[in-house]
């Protein structure tokens, strides 16, 4: 569809799983609001819907009840899903909103089911990319993948996120517990993300071990996030125990927004050694919360940070430990990182990103 064909009545979104606790779920809800504000009808259709959002979305197979002539579909591509085949069959003009996915190789040796799922996701990307009238990538890194998959027209626009959730009122019980730990001395190092091999939490544990040995024997590491890889979680827990770090590494699992705010408020530094990031929302959350960020420059991390974090070329424990020590003890550096981080988070959090996304869609489907 193009501008000459007229303005579509509805721009609906499709997604594999609509979850209130992940970046894609939040992005989808914010984009729906922006699409509606632009005057379109816009609903969300998903293969699976979290109970908390049951009133905000429909199952994808209910789409025909809402379909009208000239509809446009925006597919939030995160993983393999029945939605991909469903959209390919229906032939609705398609905008591919690509959030990237972890390559199958990252799960090899850990989760055979995840390897298969990631392989299918790659096949589905190859199926949909050539059919899409527009591919929206969250980073130049992801845009290259979209183009390789056959997407002819692409644009790079950031993830829409409510970074205010990390500066809202923190959970008082969690905050009190973190304060108690903080009073014992030592730095509090934070990472937020699913516990899976590609996020490399084991590298964070190695870095903590080196940091405690070389600089700060009381330092703690908080690994916030649920897991989709129980094999990896078990290996991580056993590794932590073997290193004698059971007291120093906390694994609170998936937490509420208020508890997440408490973790950001208590953190001295946010550290990411992920092997793959399509964007990295938690990096920006940390910046919004005024926490200095250190990250390995894998995937789109350097792009997302855009100079507002210490980007490490290597994840060697001694190298990371030296960076942690510098950030935790150099007031001028903390002030610099916090200032540029806050500015970067403000830049990404502004309504500008939402309006630019809507404009990009309008340009190809008709205003």
């Amino acid at each position: 569809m193009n501008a000459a064909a007229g303005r579509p009545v509805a721009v609906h979104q499709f997604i594999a799983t609509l979850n209130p606790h992940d970046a894609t779920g939040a992005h989808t809800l914010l984009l729906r609001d922006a699409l509606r504000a632009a005057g379109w009808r816009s609903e969300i259709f998903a293969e699976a819907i979290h109970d908390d959002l049951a009133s905000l979305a429909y199952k994808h197979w209910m789409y025909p009840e809402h379909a009208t002539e000239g509809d446009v579909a925006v597919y939030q591509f995160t993983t393999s899903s029945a939605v991909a085949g469903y959209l390919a069959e229906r032939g609705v003009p398609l905008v591919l909103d690509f959030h990237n996915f972890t390559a199958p190789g990252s799960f090899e040796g850990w989760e055979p089911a995840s390897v298969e799922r990631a392989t299918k996701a790659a096949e589905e990307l190859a199926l949909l990319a050539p059919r899409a009238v527009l591919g929206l990538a969250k980073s130049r890194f992801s845009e290259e993948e979209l183009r390789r998959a056959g997407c002819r027209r692409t644009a790079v626009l950031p993830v829409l996120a409510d970074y205010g959730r990390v500066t809202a009122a923190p959970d008082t019980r969690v905050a009190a517990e973190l304060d108690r730990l903080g009073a014992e001395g030592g730095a509090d190092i934070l990472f937020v993300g699913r516990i899976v091999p590609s996020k490399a939490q084991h590298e964070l544990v190695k870095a903590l071990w080196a940091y405690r040995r070389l600089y700060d024997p009381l330092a703690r590491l908080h690994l916030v996030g649920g897991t989709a890889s129980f094999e990896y979680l078990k290996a991580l827990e056993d590794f932590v125990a073997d290193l004698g770090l059971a007291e120093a590494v906390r694994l609170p699992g998936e937490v509420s927004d208020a508890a997440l705010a408490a973790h950001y408020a208590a953190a001295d530094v946010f550290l990411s050694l992920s092997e793959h990031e399509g964007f990295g929302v938690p990096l920006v959350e940390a910046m919004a919360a005024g926490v200095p960020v250190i990250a390995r420059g894998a995937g789109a991390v350097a792009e997302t940070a855009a100079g507002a974090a210490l980007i490490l070329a290597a994840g060697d424990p001694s190298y990371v430990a030296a960076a942690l020590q510098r950030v935790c003890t150099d007031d001028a550096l903390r002030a610099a990182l916090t200032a540029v981080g806050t500015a970067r988070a403000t830049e990404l959090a502004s309504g500008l990103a939402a309006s630019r996304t809507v404009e990009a869609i309008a340009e190809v489907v008709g205003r």
Partner: protein
Amino acid sequence: MEDSELTMPEDPQAYVDQVMAEIAEEVRLRRSSGDLPPKLERELDELFLAHSPVAGRGGDLGDALRMVDAATFIDPVVPVESEKAAGAFVKKGMRSMMLWYVGWVTHQMSQSASAVSRALHIVDQRLLELERQVEVQRVPGAGIVEFPELDGADAWWVEPAVAAVAKAPGRVLHAACGDGWLVRRIVAAGGDAYGIDPRAHLVQAVELGTLDLREEGLAEHLRAVAAAGLGAVVLSGVVEGMASGERAQLLSAIETRLAPGGTLVVHSVSRDSWESADAPPEADLAPGRPLRPEAWCRLLEQSGYEAVAQVGRGGADYVVTAVRDTITAPYAPRQR
């Protein structure tokens, strides 16, 4: 830790850049002082690997099957220990009442698991047979082929190689490092380098001190390196005898392990040197033959490198220096 009176530098971005250089220097000094010996970092890697599943450790099917066999038996007699006084008594009573039902279910599950295990053992047998047949037609991997007069600290190509990796965005790996002659040169020039070599007698004979040399093969080592974990890779005595498939696998592995903006240096002898009468016998035994420098440049440019070749005096050998593409800045970069 508290953020008290924070002093804001005049140009925050410039200060961050300066700090990155100081951190790299701090690491170099720590490493050279032996505060955190490379051996300890390697032991950390090995410790984590020991907890990963058998497949993740590169273990064979036999190991996995032993784990399956061990897990096949499901014990229907649940433990009854309890921290509360009456807990154990209550649990024991419940166990007695439900044992018949639990036993029946676990029996079915054990039988099912045994059937799967038996099938897997048959698959294992057939795979072993297949491997034996494939072995006959196997193309052997290339070994290290060194031409003593063209390698070593005094070789002409060492100077350009050291210069090429001087600003690498991460650690520098020298494959087939021998006694560490090139690693020493790079470290002396201020770089952060380490070496690997599968020839145990060479590595073990070196007084390591703060030198980071490891007794390891290149393919095996690259599998364990994280994506974008290396700033530069120097290959010498490694690629000449490789068959095309092995060479493609090596380049693919290096491509993912090299950080954006990283450098690959390839030193190779010419075909004339390879076929000369005084070439080492390993040259005859290798499955492949050296490429010409033009072929290396083409190959690397196709993989997204910018490559330049330099040929040594008399054309006996050459070195190719290739820099990997960087990813440019994203949407709305801040102007400094």
